């Protein structure tokens, strides 16, 4: 692989895709929050209907899918090359000061991938009508899939909620390193702005994680 793409090129693509996937997270979160901020599931169902039928979104969903594939495959290639670069390890574990979550990007990444696969089966394939049947509901006289009911049913299952919360926590760890790391890999380092990028990266990781986590908790305990 290094014959075709340099290590820096791979890291640049990794960063672009990582930042792209973060923007997707923000969009996803804002739609999910409709379930919590609205007394009925109508708004969420309408948004889901829009996301599932709008031609631009349908096209964009393939770009998003490609983004995931590139990020995951490059992540695996980089990790394998990194393991190969040190065939014999140290007897005493390295204790150098370093960015904590950076050491576990492959581990958190693999867990997020498993979560993503489960998530894909539970929601995306159901929404697309590939797996199971989804009841219909009327929103403003229009018949749309009742995705809200599907989400609420899953978030009423304690084990599902626990699994979801753990996966989201791991995603937060991944984002905590990923955000500032993407800027570094893209060469976007500046004495004036980098402290802000680092600070915002931590804030972004926490806010995304907490906001996503609040949804199953509110549905499980309050709704």
């Amino acid at each position, binding site marked *: 692989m290094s014959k075709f793409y340099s290590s820096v090129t791979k890291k640049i693509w990794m960063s672009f895709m990582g930042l792209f996937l973060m923007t997707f997270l923000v969009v996803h979160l804002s739609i999910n929050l409709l379930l919590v901020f609205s007394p009925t599931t109508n708004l969420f169902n309408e948004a889901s209907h829009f996301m599932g039928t709008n031609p631009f979104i349908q096209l964009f969903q393939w770009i998003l899918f490609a983004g995931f594939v590139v990020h995951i495959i490059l992540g695996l290639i980089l990790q394998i090359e990194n393991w190969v670069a040190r065939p014999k390890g140290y007897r005493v574990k390295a204790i150098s000061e370093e960015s904590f979550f*950076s050491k576990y990007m492959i581990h958190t990444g693999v867990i997020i991938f498993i979560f993503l696969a489960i998530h894909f089966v539970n929601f995306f394939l159901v929404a697309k009508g590939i797996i199971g049947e989804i009841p219909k509901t009327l929103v403003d006289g229009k018949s749309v899939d009742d995705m809200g009911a599907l989400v609420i049913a899953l978030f009423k299952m304690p084990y599902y909620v626990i699994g979801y919360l753990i996966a989201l926590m791991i995603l937060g760890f991944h984002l905590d390193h990923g955000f500032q790391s993407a800027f570094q890999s893209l060469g976007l380092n500046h004495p004036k702005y980098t402290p802000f990028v680092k600070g915002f990266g931590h804030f972004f990781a926490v806010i995304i994680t907490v906001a996503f986590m609040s949804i199953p908790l509110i549905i499980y305990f309050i709704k």
Partner: protein
Amino acid sequence: MDLKLKIWRQPSAHADGKFVDYQVHEISKDASFLEMLDILNEELVNKGEDPVAFDHDCREGICGMCSLFINGRPHGPDTAITTCQLHMRRFKDGETVTIEPWRAKPFPVIKDLMVDRSAFDEIIQAGGFVSIATGGVPDANAIPIRKQNADLAMDAAACIGCGACVAACKNASAMLFVSAKVSQFALLPQGKVEAKERVQMMVARMDELGFGNCTNTYACEAECPKEISVTNIARMNREFLVAKLS
């Protein structure tokens, strides 16, 4: 002070190695780490045994020759110093000290604690120089250079190429070294002329040699005896991206 040493012994590049335990006694707290190894070697020679091979040269922290991965850290427990500047007062009496060679595929062990770091020379040979005719020595102020850039270039040029960054990195990545060498030229007018070719050639050579990829753990910066900043890595990425796109 008395110490128990666990030292990696490997007779030659292709032989199998193993850790061997040694005891050293009555070592002065003021002795340097390498002097402690000299004392051990003197004892080994007197006993007719093969002394422990380790790299060293100036013993002033400027040549980049000494190495050693001591108790989990390149150049030992102190920050911003080389192994030759490390003193025994940093250790406790009776402590066990594990000494390992740098571990990375492009840094093969030659013998015991000595590794072949010529991979770094090969990266320099790929572009870490200025080949344009720059003429004779110009007047001090003939080429205006921003003070900030002059300082950053000087900071980058402080890299002594010891390889601690590679040794510390969990990926055995040489990005800190290469980025320091790219930066010291890219920041100055004479180096800017060939900056685009230089960064691409040096990165390509680094990859070919089998160094790992940077995952921004910043362990390199924490262990660098010359405190080379990871901002150099960002600069190199930027230089590389601009070179590829233009």
